[in-house]
């Protein structure tokens, strides 16, 4: 194994000589004095990689010969949001048992064995507004891997035994769903704002038990069709050959009309006040926020820069600097806009801090909300935020499969293929005035829901060092957790 070293010996001698030469330059006294050679970068063009198969499946494809690997990701237009109202949990179960339950020609157990023996994998998952099936195999197994992957997408068997295992796990997860304060906060905060919208419906034991194999087959029928899928593929193959293989693998899978119901609108009615869930722990887990924006909002670029300065840019953001670094009140704190495609997402500040400093940490976050609305951001903050977005841009294209998945996701979310061509210009165009404008428009201090999971009395008590009581933030409503098994 050491024979390649020989190749390096003359090489290293030369490197050494060079190293000594180029090491002569002085080390600047401060990193701001460093200068860098110019760097230009053009993102991959969607049109160079996109094609449509005869059956309507969209494919983003790129050869990558750096490793003997093959990867594919199918993005399916589906999601838990399409659960039938009387069958909550069908979509998630379909997503999971699609993979574990095998196909009409190979059992789930045999499929597991075969993939493990090849050192490959196929995963399937169901998100709120999309589904994904991914394949990863060695180059030598492309043909077999593709065949299994296509078979699962087209002909899942949803074996009863695997449905049973899934149900056991889902019910177990339900039983434990109030244990982790982070999970409780996330779920209850969303329920408060989205109400009974399909995005936030919760499962129950009886609901899970009532789902049948027929329900899964029916759900599969509604969403799984070639013209409802965008596929990203990359790896060690010849592009022309692989396209033929894709056509062959999905041959016989016909286009069909997809008739998914429209995702209901969200009233986006904010719920100002203080909401608390009792849990005997030594910290308060806090979200404070209200409705935000859709991903398609034209102010998205200004909002991203504004939130980076406010609380999205880790240590270069104001909330982290104040709450964590200055005051030592928390490990994890900041703010975010959770942009969604179909309905408005949420805006929130977040922090977890010991019970006694809950009121103080909340005050500090609210102060930052107010400050970014009333004062212009500094030139330095603006420059840091812009540079971060512009300079880190190529990250999303750093491997062939991540580049193809990025382009596939772009199309899935309804953006034009040339979106990234002007992406950096849009960040560049944002002004300090824009930052203040979007802060005033999208952050509404008077409409905040302050949601706390923690030991209520200890959180309310605060400490004797800092002013401020939870009552100052609004009327306190205590929310009793439901029995997770019955949702009652």
């Amino acid at each position, binding site marked *: *194994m050491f024979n*390649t*070293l020989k190749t*390096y010996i003359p*090489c290293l001698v*030369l*490197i050494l000589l*060079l*190293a000594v030469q180029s*090491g002569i330059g002085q*080390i600047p006294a*401060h*990193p701001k004095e*460093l200068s*860098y*050679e110019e*760097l*230009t*970068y*053009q993102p991959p063009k969607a049109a160079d990689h996109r094609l449509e198969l005869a059956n309507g499946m969209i494919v983003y494809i790129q050869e*990558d010969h*750096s*490793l*003997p*690997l093959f990867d594919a990701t199918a993005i399916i237009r589906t999601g838990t949001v399409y659960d039938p109202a009387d069958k909550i949990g069908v979509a998630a179960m379909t997503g999971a048992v699609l993979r574990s339950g095998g196909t009409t020609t190979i059992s789930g157990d045999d499929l597991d064995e075969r993939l*493990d*023996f*090849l*050192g490959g994998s196929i995963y399937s998952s169901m998100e709120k507004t999309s589904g994904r099936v991914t394949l990863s195999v*060695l*180059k030598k197994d492309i043909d077999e891997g593709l065949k299994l992957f296509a078979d699962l997408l087209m002909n899942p068997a949803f074996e009863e035994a695997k449905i049973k*295992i899934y149900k*056991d796990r889902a019910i*177990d997860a339900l*039983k*434990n769903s109030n244990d*982790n*304060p982070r999970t409780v906060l996330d779920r209850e905060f969303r329920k408060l704002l989205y109400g009974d919208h399909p995005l936030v419906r919760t499962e129950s034991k009886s609901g899970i038990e009532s789902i049948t194999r027929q329900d899964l087959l029916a759900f599969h029928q509604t969403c799984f069709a070639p013209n409802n899928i965008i596929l990203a593929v990359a790896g060690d193959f010849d592009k022309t050959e692989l396209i033929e293989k894709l056509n062959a693998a999905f041959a016989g899978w016909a286009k069909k009309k997809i008739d998914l119901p429209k995702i209901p609108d969200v009233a986006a009615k904010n719920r100002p006040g203080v909401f608390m869930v009792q849990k005997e722990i030594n*910290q308060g887990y806090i979200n404070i926020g209200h409705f935000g924006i859709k991903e398609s909002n034209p102010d998205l670029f200004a909002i991203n820069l504004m939130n980076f300065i406010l609380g999205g840019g880790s*240590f270069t953001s104001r909330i982290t*600097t104040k709450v*964590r*670094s*200055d*005051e*030592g*009140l*928390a*490990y*994890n704190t900041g703010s975010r806009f959770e942009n969604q495609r179909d309905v408005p997402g949420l805006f929130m500040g977040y922090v*977890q801090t*010991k019970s006694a400093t809950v009121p103080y940490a909340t005050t500090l976050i609210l102060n930052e909300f107010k400050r970014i609305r009333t004062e212009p951001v500094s030139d330095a903050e603006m420059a*840091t935020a812009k*540079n*971060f977005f512009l*300079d880190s841009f*190529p*990250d999303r*294209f750093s*491997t062939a499969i991540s580049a193809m998945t990025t382009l596939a996701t772009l199309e899935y979310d309804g953006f034009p293929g040339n979106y990234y061509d002007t992406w950096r210009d849009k960040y560049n165009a944002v002004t300090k005035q824009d930052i203040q404008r979007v802060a005033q428009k999208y952050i509404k201090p008077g409409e905040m829901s302050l949601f706390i999971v923690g030991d209520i009395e200890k959180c309310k008590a605060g400490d004797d060092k800092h002013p401020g009581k939870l009552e100052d933030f609004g009327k306190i409503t205590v929310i009793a957790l439901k029995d997770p098994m019955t949702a009652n």
Partner: protein
Amino acid sequence: MNRFKTGISLPALLLILCSPLALFAQTLDLESQVIEYTLDNGMKLLMVERHEAPRVVCHIYYRVGGVYERPGITGISHFHEHMMFKGTRTMGTSDFEKNDAINRQIDEVMDKIYREKFWSKNTDPEKIKIWQAQADSLMRAEKETIIKDDLWEFYMKNGGTGLNASTGQEITGYYVTLPSNKVELQMWLESDRLMNPCFREFYSEKEVVREERRLSENRPGWLFQEQLNASFFAASPYSWGVIGWDVDLQKVTRQDMYTFNKTWYIPNNAVAVYVGDIQPAEIIAMAQKYFGRIPKGPDPEPVRTTEPKQYCEKRLYGEADAPPSVSIYYHVPPEGHPDDAVIRVISGLLNGNTGRLYKKLVKEKGIAVDAYGYGGGMAYAGRFAVGGRPKAAAGHTPEELEQAIYEELEDLKNTPVPDYELQKVKNRTEAFLIRGLSSSMRLAAQLGRSELGLGWRDIPASLQRLKTVSAEDVMRVAQLYFVKDNRTVGILVRKQ
């Protein structure tokens, strides 16, 4: 990618001429990809070229972590990692002299407080109150001399992503991914904080670390697992977690921090890894300039205390707002021991969808919702953990699951593993390693961490060792280690 260049540079040309351009075969071939260089002060450089995008993953790893601590300063490696972001003589302050003077005053007052609080037998809260007020006012004065999170901001405004640091039992890493024209910034900042760290805002950062510990404490079942681990290791420093005991965090001093830094943060205890759009000759030249100026330190002593033989089974029972579970820990040898490859094969046999535990306990018997068995050698000790969560809804208990797990371990001792099953584990491991190379970040982490353990060449070598493991080896190793007196068992049930 299109890296703008006015003609090909000489180092680039040389690299093209003499680097072996052999691509990865279907096997794990690192030798033709990794370029290695050691500076005169003992600091190691590892480099891999990847030109897909104009980005470079820059990681630095130090051979230090929880196991290099002692009672009294547990958690200091991780706390120190936080402090490494607090500045240097140049970074993080507008006035080094003034800041330093204030910090000395703060230390004096805090020393009085700590002595009164932690040393005195009759602590006087009135005295502490007065001193605390002095400390608070000094800390406010310090803020005027501080440039907040200066290093972090420099990385961010230069397009740094993956910006982070992490501390483990044995290794601490500092990470950033930068545009390929800005690697020099990483060299500047990292060599600066290796030479001249200044631990500002020590006392507020201590509270951040304590909040971080509380986050763990509030995770279902975490406190029980911490106790179980402490029971399992009687003597070895693996007995405390990386976060440390809160009682130690409260008492640790800024002076402890500097002493710790001097011992471990030296170039001959570090490896820097660069994976991405680089020209290795340029990286080496730059590293000589920046890291090469730092003097070598005295080689740190390895951990003395290895884990002595356990002479009796240990059992721990606990209750928490968490699902019931059973955890069984066995002592196994440290990494590099010939049995380690066998232990890793056993992990493969037990784990995963087609592993024995899931197949038998979840699919066939239906008594568990989850089951796992994994582990192996660490630098100075080894642990094999096997366990799972019983299907409580159907009335199954942790004790029942425990017995069913023992049956599986007995089977490993008594029946030779079929060839097919053994081959499957070997194939999976190999594919997993090859796939790991596709992510520059994962590759950098693997190279850096291995280098500080058995050396990066052990990555392919360990795969070769694993491939030679036989069915007889599995039986012998299972018989040797999976015995009652060698185990610690934790049974956790839901608090009623």
